[in-house]
């Protein structure tokens, strides 16, 4: 289907199903139950899942395929955000120009930064991208304040020009929309004890994520993707065969920059504000974490990683000591206090600790990320079945090691 082979088509369908039914899948617990706090099916978080999914997919095209580790990708996200918010201030609250311009502007800037940074490789490339991103961050706070709003950031104001929009009705505030359909428009579906929230903004972002995901599959399977992989495994050899690898790596850099711009534009489309803190280097580090956690170089891994981190950031961080006491209430008092004391540092405000530990575990034991972990488990089960069936046949077939 659409030029995908059978396996990729299946993957694509799985992702489509997940995105479409996310409001239901992510809300498995009834509203009134004690487990309701683990529900992730509210619009704000679901939007973040798909938007940071796009960011991570794009980053994976650069890091996963070419092996170039950029530590400054958040800059493109921030630049995309600023471009989008300016479109909303100047042209219209319709998200289409905002998103298109954010992609284009981020693409142009990443062309310049990539052209310079890709002169070096390895750690020098990482430091170069880091330097550019930190410069963008510092400038957004100081000299560029007229464009970026400095520390207050930017929001659409009542008296912005917005030349394509009809004047606002009295008392109305500017809201991001798609031809009149507001991003915040929601429909609440009540089924028994369950409450499902269907949100317009989420589905628009989700649609774009599906498009981004499809494009990334096509890139992975294309001759272009093959070239990028060749660069990763041995750039010197590529150069010796007479191929110039720079246009390929630069193209990958620009594509991933545009993905980041799209993510930035979508963030603005959802919450209509932009600030420089999105460009700080820890934000760049976060997308690295997402990609590695999920599985670098795999198709779906980065999306899973992004979802995982955003889930932890929003759900695990909400567990406080009171909640913990409720969980362990069935145990004897001393035991309860002990378990709460053991778990407390890892949840709530300490969720970063869990994240850091998990990340270290993954880098140490599972360099392929969650995807590799899943694959290993799946393989174990598969092998077991096979072993039961034709144990002797296999032993004969495999040569002595």
């Amino acid at each position, binding site marked *: 289907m659409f030029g995908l082979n059978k396996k990729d088509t299946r993957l694509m369908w799985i992702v489509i199903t997940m995105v479409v039914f996310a409001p239901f899948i992510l809300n498995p617990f009834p509203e009134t139950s004690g487990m309701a706090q683990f529900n992730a099916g509210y619009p704000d978080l679901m939007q973040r899942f798909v938007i940071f999914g796009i960011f991570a997919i794009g980053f994976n095209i650069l890091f996963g395929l070419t092996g170039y580790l950029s530590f400054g990708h958040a800059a493109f996200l921030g630049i995309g955000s600023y471009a989008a918010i300016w479109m909303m201030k100047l042209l219209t609250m319709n998200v289409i120009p905002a998103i298109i311009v954010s992609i284009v502007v981020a693409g142009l800037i990443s062309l310049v930064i990539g052209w310079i940074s890709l002169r070096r490789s390895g750690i*020098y490339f990482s430091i170069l991208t880091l330097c550019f991103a930190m410069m963008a961050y510092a400038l957004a706070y100081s000299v560029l304040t007229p464009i970026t709003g400095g520390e207050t950031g930017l929001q659409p104001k009542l008296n912005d020009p917005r030349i394509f929009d009809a004047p606002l009705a009295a008392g109305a505030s500017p809201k991001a929309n798609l031809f009149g359909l507001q991003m915040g428009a929601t429909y609440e579906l009540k089924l028994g004890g369950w409450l499902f929230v269907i949100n317009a903004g989420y589905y628009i972002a989700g649609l774009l994520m599906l498009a981004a995901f499809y494009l990334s599959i096509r890139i992975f399977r294309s001759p272009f993707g093959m070239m990028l992989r060749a660069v990763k495994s041995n750039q010197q050899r590529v150069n010796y065969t007479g191929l110039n690898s720079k246009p390929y790596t630069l193209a990958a850099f620009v594509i991933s920059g545009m993905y980041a711009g799209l993510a930035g534009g979508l963030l603005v489309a959802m919450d209509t504000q932009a600030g420089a803190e999105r460009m700080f280097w820890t934000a760049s580090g976060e997308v690295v974490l997402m990609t590695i956690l999920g599985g670098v170089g795999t198709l779906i891994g980065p999306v899973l990683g992004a979802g995982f981190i955003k889930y932890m950031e929003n759900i695990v961080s909400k567990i406080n000591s009171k909640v913990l006491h409720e969980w362990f209430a069935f145990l004897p008092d001393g035991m309860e206090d002990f378990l709460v004391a053991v778990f407390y540092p890892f949840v709530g405000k300490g969720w970063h600790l869990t994240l850091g530990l998990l990340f270290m575990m993954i880098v140490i034991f599972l360099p392929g990320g969650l995807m590799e972990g899943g694959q290993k488990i799946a393989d174990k089960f598969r092998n077991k079945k096979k072993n039961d069936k034709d144990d002797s046949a296999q032993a004969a077939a495999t040569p002595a090691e």
Partner: protein
Amino acid sequence: MELSEFIAQIVNGLDKGSAYALIALGLSLIFGTLGVVNFAHGALFMIGAFCAVTLNRILTWSHVVIDETKTDFLGNPLKVNVPYVNDWFGVETGAAIIDWSVPLAIVFSIPVMILVGIIMERGLIKHFYKRPHADQILVTFGLAIVLQEIIKFFYGANPIPIGAPAAFAGSFDFGTMFGFDPNTIIYPYWRIIYFFFAALIIGAVFAFLQFTTFGMVVRAGMADRETVGLLGINIDKRFTLMFGIAAAVAGLAGVMYAPINAPNYHMGMDFLVLSFVVVVVGGMGSLPGAVAAGFLLGILESFASMDTVLQVIPGINQVVIYLVAIIVILTMPRGLMGRKGVMEE
């Protein structure tokens, strides 16, 4: 620009430059010996600063005493916290010990930091020698997050101010020493001490490497690890100790920095990026390069924040380090003083 202003800016750049130089020296030491890119080095700097906080807390450990001579506004006897050190050493000596807690923390932090460094190296870094640099960056980045979260759990998220000894409060008008007008070049005492302390540590590290047998073996190992190993020397053991020393250097930089900037849990991350830039500018694995680049960038930064410069190029003070780093990386493949053949790709 007047000469006094010029000198004032150079002096201004020295204390930040000393911190950069000390952290970068440790980073380079680790990279040069073990070939590991340690993103957790900023966290070691931060742990050093919290060594000072911890010692201060230990020294001010108090018990409540009812002071009959004073009363509160209701006429009840006042309860006063009396640190145990006062009981043991007398009131005056006790107060002096608490006052000097930061310099005392130097002694306290060295064994702690060496231990932390050795545990880190044996427990984690050891397994990453053969992995690509990207993996080393990632795992130490994760470790940095974990370390700073542990500190945050025990000490909270707010900065903890901690004072330098009262003897070093105030500023020194050393422009007058060179015949300039008073109040043209003034500088806080503690920052002057920080500079000399940094110079001392840097000198000590170089002397250790240059003039001791241990240092000689380490230098030989840096040049050719395999051959040194074949000669029957256990180079791994020595490199592990070097990691501990590098951690101690970062920790000492942190201890002494505590009075300049109140320690908070993310101060390591703030310094990490800059010190990496410093290391790369100086040349990966080059110790003199790291020190020189540290001071150079510190001084450049202070020049860039002068009003006369800012009027010409607004905002340059925020970006000058990165700008210089980009130019150096692009034009000098090995940085300022990098060795030939080390990380030149």
